């Protein structure tokens, strides 16, 4: 059941959520990632188009929310600073609330870059770990195969020294093989970061979300909840389903892809709704032009809004599932039991995310 405020926020024309991919290249090659990394850096014409779109839209808004996604967005950190800074200043000028979050692998979130991002009100971050160093460095590796844990951890220690408010959420991936590793990591995070209220952790189950098989063993719901209880020493069993501790602890969630006031602009200027189904024609809805206007196939777009007709939790929680069930392509295997409700903010990769 959805609250009025949840529906208001999802439908409001005075709120605009823009998901931007400054590049679809990534410096990581996570073993389970579904992305193809074919599209590179956002060209100047698309950047200019986004600026003009923002210049036209912001004066009419109450809230602008920018989400950076990729690829790895901080591979193109100059574009994040340029466009994010522009949006931040525009909102300041017009008295519009501005929020920005970055889904990043954390490798490039250095102690030098972090304060510059905070200066332009980019205060929310999501960083994924696949367990402690032992497991993380098996699956979340650089494109050259090298380890990443130590550098990400050092970056987090540097971020912890920054002044001012920010929120860093650690997304901890869980599968059959890494439960002990995640427990060790969780203990270490509690000791070194989670006492600081600017940091938090939540869990997510690794699932197969593309046609390509993954090596990790996928937990069923019962096994997953048991694993969370073990990892958290039982704390996960004492929190409500609205706590956001994991995708099994979310109620009344409406995916950004279902919201009329949310758009994704890919690095090549194409417009879509879902950050997961990137190869799906149903997610190829139009494009932004250099003059800042958008050309959108509204007939196709409305398919993503169908959940509002019934207020179905499943459809609004993941409209892609309903679309795929209606017309399943061979390379898209998201099932309701696997994706369900994921985070309000898009997170890196479907296989990676879920």
């Amino acid at each position, binding site marked *: 059941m959805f609250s009025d*405020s949840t529906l*208001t926020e999802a*439908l409001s024309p005075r709120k605009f959520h823009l998901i931007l991919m400054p590049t679809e290249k990534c410096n990581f090659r996570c073993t389970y990632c579904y992305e193809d990394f074919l599209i590179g850096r956002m060209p100047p014409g698309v950047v200019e188009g986004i600026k003009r779109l923002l210049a036209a839209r912001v004066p009419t808004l109450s809230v602008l929310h920018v989400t950076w996604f990729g690829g790895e967005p901080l591979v193109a950190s100059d574009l994040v600073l340029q466009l994010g800074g522009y949006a931040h200043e525009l909102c300041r000028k017009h008295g519009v*609330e501005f929020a920005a979050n970055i889904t990043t692998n954390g490798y490039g979130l250095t102690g030098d870059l972090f304060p510059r991002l905070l200066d332009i009100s980019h205060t929310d971050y999501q960083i994924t770990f696949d367990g402690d160093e032992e497991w993380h460095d098996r699956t979340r590796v650089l494109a050259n195969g090298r380890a990443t844990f130590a550098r990400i951890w050092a970056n987090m220690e540097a971020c912890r020294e920054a002044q001012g408010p920010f929120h860093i959420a650690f997304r901890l991936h869980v599968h059959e093989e890494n439960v002990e590793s995640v427990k060790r990591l969780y203990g270490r995070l509690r000791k070194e970061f989670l006492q600081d209220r600017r940091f938090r952790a939540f869990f997510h189950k690794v699932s197969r979300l593309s046609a390509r098989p993954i090596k990790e063993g996928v937990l069923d719901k019962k096994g997953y909840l048991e694993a969370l209880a073990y990892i958290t020493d039982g704390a*996960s069993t004492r*929190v409500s389903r609205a706590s956001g501790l994991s995708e099994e602890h979310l109620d009344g969630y409406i995916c950004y892809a279902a919201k009329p006031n949310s758009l994704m602009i890919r690095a090549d200027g194409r417009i879509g709704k879902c950050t997961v189904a990137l190869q799906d024609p149903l997610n190829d809805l139009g494009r932004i032009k250099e003059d800042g206007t958008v050309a959108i196939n509204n007939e196709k777009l409305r398919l993503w809004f169908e959940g509002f007709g019934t207020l179905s939790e499943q459809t609004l929680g993941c409209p892609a599932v309903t679309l795929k069930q209606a017309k399943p392509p061979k390379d898209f295997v998201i099932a309701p039991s696997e994706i369900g409700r994921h985070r309000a903010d898009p997170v890196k990769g479907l296989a990676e995310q879920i």
Partner: protein
Amino acid sequence: MDIRNPFHRIDPSGMSICSDGSVKYDDKELYEKSGGNVPAHVSSRSPNDACSNILACSESLNDGRCHNVGSCEESDNFNCANFTDCSPYAVNRVGCSDYSGCDDWSVCPKP
């Protein structure tokens, strides 16, 4: 019409995005309701997004903390796992450091 629910009927076929990126609803009532009720400080990570009756409460209190606002029932603050204290902030008494809904951990016992 159920006056408690401005979204008693939503027709997806009447939703569009214009060339300037703005949202357009053919249903004028829906447009007005959705446009007129947005608290300025609501953002996607506000814990009060989950409060089912926040629209009946003071918008100024929607400040990112989990409140029991005005005449709202405690159950409206279901973002707090163990809502035991309405004033001034709702605090989660269990697993504080793991919990996103409450902002003021200083008054929480450490897990």
